[in-house]
């Protein structure tokens, strides 16, 4: 039996998938990312350092903050610049707000219609109106967090190599803290909603990979770890990982050298550093009976919902630590090399 889906609808980007099954055994599987190539690595060469974050932000409209932060950190490393502790905290706030926002879109708009066999999000009315309203409430607040520090929620402008070009007034931060407090229950409700979904039963023994920097639930920097004992610095990425080109797809495929594919993302992070989650997230996970290690890839949805609880509580707490100093961006350009991971 051959199954061929030419356009995978519920993902960001454009892909197709082909299965070749004989007597119930999978003979061949091809994932083809046919999204036209854009050659970012090519045209970034010879550009000014301060243009790079704004250019790479455009790789993705859902996760511009991740691409920007990676570029900023790599450039700062190459230029031998150490960012102020405040900038590091604010970058974490930016990253958390964007991760929560992205998880929300995935769970409510992409996963949920599939689990209820609905065509798409407009078909969710009126049955799921309370859920869609909850999504709107939460998405609005987390987008406001990104916009408050970045200038706008998509393709932020004030986050630059060296720090932040401007900072919001105190009263706006107090207001957003209050709003984050208000959506904490929505986050827990989201987790309950996701835990009610009927997930297919599947165990997939893959290698789970994440970045880690105890005692924090790492975002933006850390060691690369896996449950099979990998622990390397960001610089040593290519000592373990290998990027391959495949003839039928425009996207490259990364594998662990001498081994096979691996899994990153929310479930991988939870499997590797559940203990470092915010207490609120641990409690919420316990309430629905989520335990690590969990080798069912469909439970990535659960992991995302747990990370939503974590992200909102962590964001709220980090904002207490922000001391608003007048931003100073003192970058001296020099020759150098910097490798970072996000």
């Amino acid at each position, binding site marked *: 039996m051959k199954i061929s889906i030419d356009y995978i*609808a*519920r*993902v*960001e980007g454009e892909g197709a998938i082909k299965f070749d099954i004989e007597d119930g055994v999978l003979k061949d599987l091809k994932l083809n990312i046919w999204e*036209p*190539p*854009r*050659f*970012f*690595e*090519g*045209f970034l*060469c*010879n*550009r*000014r350092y301060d*243009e790079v974050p*704004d*250019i790479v932000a*455009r790789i993705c*409209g859902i996760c511009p903050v991740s691409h920007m932060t990676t570029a900023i950190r790599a450039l700062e490393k190459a230029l031998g610049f150490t960012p102020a502790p405040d900038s590091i905290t604010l970058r974490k706030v930016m990253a958390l707000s964007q991760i929560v926002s992205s998880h929300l879109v995935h769970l409510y*708009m*992409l996963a949920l219609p599939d689990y209820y066999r609905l*065509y*798409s*999000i*407009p*078909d969710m009315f009126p049955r799921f109106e309370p859920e869609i309203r909850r999504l709107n409430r939460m998405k609005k607040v987390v987008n406001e967090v990104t916009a408050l520090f970045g*200038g*706008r929620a*998509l*393709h932020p*402008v*004030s986050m*630059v190599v060296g720090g932040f*070009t*401007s900072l919001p007034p105190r009263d706006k931060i107090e207001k957003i803290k209050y709003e984050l407090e208000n959506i904490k229950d929505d986050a827990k409700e989201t987790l309950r909603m996701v835990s009610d979904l009927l997930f297919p039963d599947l165990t997939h023994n893959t290698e789970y990979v994440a970045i880690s920097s105890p005692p924090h639930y790492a975002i933006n920097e850390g060691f690369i770890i896996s449950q099979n004992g990998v622990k390397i610095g960001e610089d040593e990425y290519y000592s373990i990982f290998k990027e391959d*080109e495949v*003839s*039928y797809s*425009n996207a490259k495929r990364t594998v662990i050298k001498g081994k096979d594919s691996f899994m990153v993302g929310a479930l991988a992070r939870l499997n590797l550093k559940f203990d470092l989650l915010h207490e609120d997230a641990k409690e919420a996970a316990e309430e629905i009976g989520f335990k690590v290690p969990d080798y069912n890839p469909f439970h990535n949805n659960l992991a995302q919902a747990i990370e939503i609880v974590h992200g909102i509580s962590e964001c709220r707490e980090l904002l207490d630590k922000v001391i608003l100093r007048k931003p100073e961006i003192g970058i001296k350009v020099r020759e150098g090399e910097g490798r970072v991971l996000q």
Partner: protein
Amino acid sequence: MVTSGGTPEGPFDVSLIEGTVTKSWQADELKRIREKSTYLFAIGSCAINGGIPALKSTHPELEVGKKVYQDLSTIHSIRPSSIDAYVHVDGFIRGCPPGERDLCEALTSVLSGKQPDFLEYSVCIECKLKGNICLLVAHNMPCMGPVTNAGCEALCPSHNRACYSCWGPMRQANAFALAKKFEAYGDIFRGHNQEVYSIRFCHCRVQKGSRVL
């Protein structure tokens, strides 16, 4: 990602087209959509000016491709272009990300049967209305505001950084004059390859003899 069913083959009252054309099948599809649509708007800097993907035009195709793939035999990409190079466009919803104001303006205009009123002036106007101090004149920062279409409410200058033209060039912008100003300011406005900041910029229209620049 999101669909409400309907008829994927058309006809359509309004089509909003995003993205740069970099494949010949995209141009074919675009033409088909135009034929089936009463109104067609370009939305976002990629569709309007080529945007970031059009930066590859600053180098020969092979050179750019070789930096990304070892085997280019299965990689196909044509010279990037804006969508109005292929079809007639009823209006431009500018910005990267595109602005709400212009999107609402386009759709409400269609509904009420009037000409959409898009902003046809530079970021400088919005910046002055906000009462910002000029970054270009007072702080010697490489601000693209004078040649960039308004719509962002002078976002970057209001956050103490120079505009980088994500809304794209405005109609009849005098880019040459700004480039001369940048040149006079000296090295901070130049990249390693000694091209002037403005013409290397992210969202500039790439084709010669184009309508805007």
